[in-house]
């Protein structure tokens, strides 16, 4: 600075240094090195920084620029707005209920304190399993986990104990994915599998009746528990003849607030608005199927309107709920944008994607309306339809191949 120079680290110098480090340590991970069993870990880190140097052998001599790393990174980019908002919202809700300042810096930093440990545990425990399986199988570490590792914490309430996070991600990665052979071969969405495990194993924490806001004990202030209830929990309490919309309005959960997402709920799911933004990004880049998303929305709306028709004076309050509330309450927007569109567990055929999405929307509403025990339906709806996607694919493929002029 004194001589008028500004000392900067040029990016290529920095990358050169990183590259050198990799080259220096490569020998330890190769076939005769001490750490050869951890080669997948080395490889994963190296290819994170630098694209691999391999070239085509025969066949098409040029290849598309996209690879799975980019494909999965784009899902993470799409998740970022929801994720950042989730951090803010977790902190905001916590500070609000604890009577602490709710300005943005205070709320966001509180959110970081709440959310980052959960994300950290999810990634580190999940990566442990990934590395273990990849090392034993001598596979490369697949990028699918990058998405699972962040999707999973976003579906959890901020109050989740960290040991449950570890347990859930372990179940999701090992049973949901690795026992089938890893990313690409799983039949269920691993993040949702983990969440479903926690839901059935520890219903007290997960069923949504509990308060999902981290409450700090503040002296001289009695905490109003009900004000921490999620909209779905509020709705579930509605009795016959009560109007859920009015009940929600009474708690301050207007349609607009439900849409923007400043209400208690799972970390990433509350803002339907940001889920739509992420979904649009994924649709535009061709990573998520618009058929599934639109199908899902249509499923929710048509089922909702159909149920409205059956609603009478003495019927349950859920029946007469405006279907648009289903879209913005709870995890539907998040699930249909980021979970249902996971290409591995969704059907691969284009037409049945409509059915798949529609059924998810329909089941979500049916579970919410008719299942008194648990008012959130999207998780079960997606997992249920995951099971059906091979069948849906099978049907469409058979119908399509029937039209082909045989060539044998």
């Amino acid at each position, binding site marked *: 600075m004194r001589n008028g120079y500004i000392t900067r680290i040029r990016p290529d110098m920095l990358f050169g240094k990183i590259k050198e480090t990799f080259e220096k340590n490569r020998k330890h991970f190769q076939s005769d090195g001490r750490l050869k069993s951890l080669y997948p870990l080395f490889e994963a880190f190296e290819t994170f920084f630098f*694209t691999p140097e391999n070239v085509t052998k025969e066949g098409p001599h040029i290849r598309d620029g*996209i690879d799975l790393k980019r494909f999965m990174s784009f899902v993470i980019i799409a998740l970022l707005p929801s994720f950042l908002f989730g951090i803010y919202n977790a902190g905001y809700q916590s500070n609000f209920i604890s009577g602490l300042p709710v300005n943005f810096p205070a709320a966001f930093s509180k959110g970081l304190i709440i959310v980052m440990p959960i994300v950290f545990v999810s990634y580190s425990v999940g990566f442990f399993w990934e590395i273990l399986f990849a090392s034993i199988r001598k596979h490369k570490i697949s990028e699918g986990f990058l998405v699972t590792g962040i999707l999973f914490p976003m579906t959890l309430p901020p109050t989740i104990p960290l040991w449950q996070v570890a347990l859930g991600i372990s179940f999701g990665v090992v049973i949901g994915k690795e026992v089938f052979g890893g990313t690409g071969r799983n039949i269920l969405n691993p993040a949702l599998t983990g969440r479903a495990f926690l839901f059935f194993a520890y219903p007290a924490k997960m069923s949504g009746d509990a308060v999902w806001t981290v409450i700090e004990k503040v002296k001289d202030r009695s905490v109003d528990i009900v004000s921490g209830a999620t909209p779905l929990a509020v709705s579930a309490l509605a009795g016959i003849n009560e109007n859920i919309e009015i009940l929600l309005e009474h708690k301050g959960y207007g349609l607009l607030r439900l849409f923007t997402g400043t209400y208690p709920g799972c970390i990433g799911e509350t803002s339907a608005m940001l889920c739509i933004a992420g979904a649009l990004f994924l649709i535009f880049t061709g990573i998520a199927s618009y058929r599934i998303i639109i199908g899902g929305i249509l499923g929710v709306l048509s089922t909702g309107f159909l149920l409205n028709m059956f609603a009478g004076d003495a019927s349950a309050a859920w029946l007469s709920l405006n279907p648009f509330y289903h879209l913005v309450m709870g995890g539907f927007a998040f699930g249909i944008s980021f979970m249902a569109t996971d290409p591995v567990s969704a059907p691969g055929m284009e037409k049945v994607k409509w059915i798949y999405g529609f059924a998810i929307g329909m089941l979500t509403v049916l579970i919410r309306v008719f299942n008194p025990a648990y008012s959130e339906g999207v998780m079960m709806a997606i997992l249920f339809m995951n099971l059906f996607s091979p069948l849906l694919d099978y049907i469409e493929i058979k119908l399509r191949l029937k039209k*082909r002029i045989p060539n044998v």
Partner: protein
Amino acid sequence: MILLKIKKGFDIKIEGSPLPDLLELDKPHFVASLPERIPFIKPKLAVEKGEKVKIGSTLFIDKRNPGIKFLSPGCGQIEKIGFGARRAIKEIVIRLDNTEEYVEFDVAKFSGDRDFNRDDVVKSMMEGGIWPFIRELPFRDIAAPGYMPYALIASLDNKEPFLPDPRVYLKGETGLFKKGMSILKKLAKNVYVHSSKDFINTNVEGIPITHKFSGDYPADDPGVLMHYIKNNPSENRTWYISGQDVINLGSFFSTGRYPVARTVVLAGILAAKRGHFKTRIGVPIKHIIGGRIKDGKKARIISGGIFSGYATSEESCIGFYETSLTLLPEGGESEAFGFLRAGFDRPSYSKTFLSCFNRRPLAADCSLHGDERACVNCGSCAKVCPVDILPQFAFKSIAAADVEEALSHGILDCVECGLCSYVCTSKIDLCDFIKNAKRVYYKDKA
């Protein structure tokens, strides 16, 4: 004329396309025949090292059908017979004399307006070494002479980067093309000429085009045409011939001499002078490239189109069917944080690069741009497949050795365009799976 709209495929815009001018090259010092580059044949040598040959002397025959002969594209002395692994004949090199002596074939009965029958045509073509120009779908082997196919397709286009432009090689040769067509009419129930709309608009005189299409690579492939127009399974065994070879056919039946002319394209971003070169069959690659290669990066020399061709070396020669040389950078440089690059100039079928807003042709190299992973069912391959195969499902049935299932997916309709491999997010060589399965099935059947 039938109009076809071919919706699938991919218009890949790659920098380095050849100029439409035609340059005549001098006579090379030697030419070669490359039996190993002719699929399926079992070559049996008919010459020895040191022997004198004329243009049109038999070099080798196909043991599977001894009537199918491969003739010498040059007049001179056999300089070298190269063998590869397991004594497969790699190349037969002929050092050329100063003279051009031809073996004369009797084609008098095909001249003028005289009528002739199919058997005579087949016999003359096999004798004259031009039968192998005609190939048979679905396996793309040399056509079986005894079979009467429903259709024979002459394709007149160059959708694959980078093949010779028909407008260039047809210039001044339309008479021979028409002569060739009149001969082909005897060989099949229907003879089609198939070309794209853009090509027709420029109006090459007197070419009787029967099918014109709009669409992207590989819409010009005869297999794609058949996929759109076939009505029953008997049409699967369609024959096809390339536009240049129709001209050669016409030339053979007009002169009675084995045709050796070839228009070869030199293209690719590493080619310093890109264009069409009029030369001959079996010309040494060095003779075409000459000094027309840019220094610096290591070039991959691709013979026969970026998607369907093979990598070769400067020491080799142009094969029997190939009409193109493309010089691409070998690539393989690693990039920092490649998965987050904006990529305004990175060619991609996906919309995950800013290049989807870039209409200009882009530079491409032979990098894989990633590493192989398990299929995540993204479905890009099925979106580009021009013959509506579902590669993401078909390749799994192939990997599971379920031949019946794979066949029901229509893998025999595959035109081997390589687009599925190109677009694959997981870098799986899907086209290779299908090509190999077809080959294994064909060999089992035979």
